[in-house]
């Protein structure tokens, strides 16, 4: 026991920062950070505009614009590109649906793989058929655009909930 007691030499207080849930694409096709905690969202200022499709998984993501499809790293920097086309995303893969081809990001480059459509499933929603947009905000959060409003859907097991994302432009930070 004495040995265990000496495990901790000291506690280093590292950091207090603004919590960020992830990134999302708003109604004006802009990618914005989503600050706050569940039920108290503060949409941040746009970091990209003209975005056709977007998916963020916390440690990286995908972005589709007129310039093509981009693989983003954890900092949001573009690390690989593909030509534009209809696409569905997963944490590490992009499924070019028109070509029926999947590319997987292995941390260094995109590699071709067989298609497994189950990988690209989105959460089941009661109003899924009516949703205009379902995109991941982070690992446990999805953005659902439904009847002109934006919702953040938490999918953490046991803590599933739906919240509304306020969208007025006047308070973009």
């Amino acid at each position, binding site marked *: 026991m004495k040995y265990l007691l000496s*495990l901790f030499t000291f506690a280093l207080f590292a950091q207090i*920062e603004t919590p960020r849930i992830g990134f999302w694409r708003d109604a004006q096709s802009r990618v914005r950070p989503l600050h706050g905690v569940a*039920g*108290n969202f503060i949409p941040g200022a746009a970091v990209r505009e003209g975005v056709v499709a977007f998916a963020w998984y916390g440690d990286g993501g995908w972005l589709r614009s007129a310039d093509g499809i981009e693989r983003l790293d954890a900092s949001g920097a573009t690390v690989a590109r593909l030509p534009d086309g209809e696409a569905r995303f997963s944490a590490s893969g992009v499924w070019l649906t028109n070509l029926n081809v999947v590319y997987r990001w292995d941390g260094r480059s995109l590699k071709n793989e067989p298609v497994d459509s189950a990988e690209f499933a989105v959460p089941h929603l009661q109003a899924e058929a009516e949703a205009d947009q379902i995109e991941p905000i982070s690992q446990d959060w999805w953005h659902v655009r439904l009847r002109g409003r934006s919702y953040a859907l938490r999918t953490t097991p046991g803590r599933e909930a739906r919240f509304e994302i*306020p969208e007025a432009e006047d308070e973009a930070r």
Partner: protein
Amino acid sequence: MKLASLLLCAASALVAQIQVETPTGFQPVGASVTLGVTNPGDPLDTRFRGPAQANIQIGGAAFSARDILSNGDFTVRFLPAAEGSYSASLTVAGVTVIVRATAQATVVVSQAGFALSRGSVIDFGVVEVGATAQQTLLLENRSTRTLTVSKIETGATILAGPALPFNLAPGTSVPLRLGLTPASVGFLELPLSIDGREFTLRASGTIPRLPPARIMTDAVAVLSGQQVRLRIEFAEDARTASGGTLELTFSGDDPAVRLGTGRVATFSLAAGSRVAKFGAAEDIMMQTGTTAGVIRIRVQAPGNDFVREFRIESQPVVVDDAKATREGSTIVVAITGFDNSRGAASMNFRFADKAGNPLGSVFTVTPDNEWKSYFQTSGMGGVFRLRAVFPVAGDSSLVGSVTAEIANTVGRTEIGKLTLP
């Protein structure tokens, strides 16, 4: 329009020094000019224009010159006492023309006992948009012979009146009830013509007043960290369609305190409804934020201007998410939550091995300055994400879990057992 029946005689070669006002502007008159027809006792005014500073004379019963301006404009009034054809000589700067007019008995249109002259404005007063204002006119025969009314034309609604044509015996009258319904705010003017005698019906449309309203919420108690739904309910059905605004103000500084649309929202209310609509929805989301204070919601709508307050009390720290991870030779505890008092102070951490046996004593951290500095600069209300890093001198894989507790000025919050993967 009263001059529409004017007949200009162009036979004369008189110098066009005298002009008469027509619907298309002033026109030169010839040797004679016919002013039109009016009821005995009903003045018929006609505007003329002559040379500036001209001497104006008119001779003949029932005619008079009035409103003479230095620029040469003047009015000839024909006011006959009895039926018949009348004429007079009008001399302007030495040039003479003949003016003619006819007096013919027609029904007298009266309102509240007063006879209305042609061209009169009949005021229906102020009325809410969508509602109908009513006026009852009386069509009277003040002459000594039977009169016939053949035609009544109006853009207003005839709510009650005689079937046309109809005869009025001397000394009798019939009511004519009219309705005006403004469709928008401002003056509504519509014509009324009774056998060619024209009047203007006027009402002033105003924003409808709504029944008393109240703000309802789906939350039993409004606390920090909530999204509640606000709904505006009126005491009774709205008589007309209307709308208003809902404005949020907050006593503190927290951008998360807001409505779904920002800090202002507009709503509409359909006629026959008692629930306001925000777009297509019957409610609107309000975020209560993560700062203690008072949220005020002001509703402004016709007949309503009131505020409902939601007092957000200080509360112990609320933890939304907490994780403990092993990163090499360190244990990292990440806590996300909010402190609506912004008075977070000490934190206690207690580590245990995989069997649940305590490892050492409680680690107490009191990072007052870090909290203060963060809340002063974050501009994000009371939300925070804290990462506490614990370097381990020995084998960190022996650590199985950590329990944490965080305190602010209101109380302590147990974060519970965080199991290390």
